[in-house]
């Protein structure tokens, strides 16, 4: 099994997944625009799936564990649907308020212009 700096391939996958998860979390909190928030959540879920894929490789032998793969597939389906739903919701908010943010009132008060 390939190693890097003492870490197994599985560990690398897991760490990369965790990093992606945190990057997504950061984006979700810091970015006001709803599209950014939705994308940030997608990055986070990518991170979680990467962890699962890494875990699937932990079983000895050439064939990876199928169960985490099943989970990833199901998770992707769930994420695609919820992303579509979130985008639709964001679009409705834009239509209704003219901004795609959670606090449109604050924007209007500070005079900041929405970038749509």
């Amino acid at each position, binding site marked *: 099994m390939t190693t890097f700096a003492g870490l197994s391939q599985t560990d690398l996958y897991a760490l990369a997944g965790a990093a992606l998860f945190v990057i997504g979390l950061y984006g979700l909190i810091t970015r006001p625009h709803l599209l950014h928030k939705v994308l940030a959540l997608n990055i986070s879920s990518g991170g979680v799936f990467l962890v699962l894929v890494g875990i699937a490789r932990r079983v000895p032998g050439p064939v990876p564990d199928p169960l985490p793969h099943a989970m990833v597939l199901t998770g992707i389906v769930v994420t695609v649907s919820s992303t579509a739903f979130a985008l639709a919701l964001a679009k409705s*908010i834009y239509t209704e308020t003219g901004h795609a943010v959670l606090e449109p009132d604050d924007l209007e008060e500070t005079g900041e212009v929405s970038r749509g």
Partner: protein
Amino acid sequence: MAEWVTTHLPALVILVPLTAAPLAFLLGGTLARPIALLSALLSQPLALALAFTVSAEGGVRYEIGGWGGPLGIDLVADGLAATLILVATVVGLGVTVYAWGYFADRERYRYFWPLWLFLWASLYALFLSGDLFNLYVCLELVSMAAVALVGLSLRRDALLAAMRYMLAAILGSLFYLLGVALVYAAFGSIDIATVREAVRADVTGQAAFALMTVGLMLKTALFPLHFWLPPAHSNAPSPVSAVLSALVVKGSFYILVRMWVDVADPSFVPGSAALLGVLGASAIVWGSVQAMRQERLKMLVAYSTVAQIGYLFLLFPLVAGGGAAAADAWVGGMFHAASHALAKAAMFLAAGTVLARFGHDRIAGLGGLSRRAPVTAMAFALAGVTMMGLPPSGGFVAKWQMIRAALESGAWWWAVVVVAGGLLAAVYIFRVVALFLGREGAEGEDADVDAGRSPATMEWATLALALAALALGVLGQPLVELIGVGAPALVAGVGP
């Protein structure tokens, strides 16, 4: 036939609303309401039968399609699951009957029926799930349906609240899923029964539990992660608010209970029980104080939910020591979940009747409500009795058991929290009830007694739910026994 029904009972419980949902969507129009009502009525005997079967057999396990784990999906029911299913079924019927009148002639809300039935089916599936990943899928299903229902009115505030709710819900689910992945890494399974056997002190496992807990706290709106709840629950159409506060938050709480009482116990991660308890106590104080300060009735009721969720989390420190105290706390916690569900649904429905009839829910403008809408005012006040935990009500039985458990385990400070929470609730409940009895401050369409009666289905469904919460405090013994069926070892009442 009877035997067939008994064999497939767990699946049938889910299938009824799950079949009704697409039917209500496809046939739509005037047929949606009768389909929903039929489904609600069919669910009653099925949920009861499930409770009886669980009582008789000590638990039920059903393999969907006969596949079995680990790749097949198993439905599992014990006393805890059967209790929550029963609660969801009764509250669901009340809400359905109420909504019959509430959405009578509102074309705009035609999607309420399929979404509500879908949410209902997802809740059943959640309570019956036998593995942690399935719980993740069910959580997402519940959340998606709930978010759609919050935004149903397409009003600006409702859409923003729905979006906030959606982001919090997805984030919560991702935390949970990451935890599930680590559970699989640590213990090699996601089946609850298997993990229960395999669980041992292990850093990966502990990290997994911590991640899942954070995600579920966010979904349950435990202070300080409650920020999304008040806007979502107060901006949703009232029957939806009722379901969200009564049932949906209990879904994620149910998973927390599974994790910390059934699969592992609070000693698995040192300090976890105390932390959850402290957050719960903070929620009680913070939610109550915020509820006192609200100017809109639905916001008051929503903050009351934030406070009442706090009681649920007192369960963890109270069961942590095991023994008789844990057994008492177990009954208390689950009784609180059940009676709060009934009473909080009644409160939101009462607020909905007010909103629908007078066109506003400003508390200051509700003077004399007991004269203008006596049934609704009475329902609100009776639901308030359960919120305050005063007898005779299910809320009282819950607090009785929690205080008893606290004294029993020597951790008397939790008893102080429970008592103080009841008095804080009295402040915000009586603030409203006093106005109902008063003569001043009436605003809205019809100040006259005779004008504009609300549909009977709305008023009486509300009162029935409030009365059911009271009845639990007198006739609740069967529920006490059901809660104990197949209870986790930690709370089974045997000494440590």
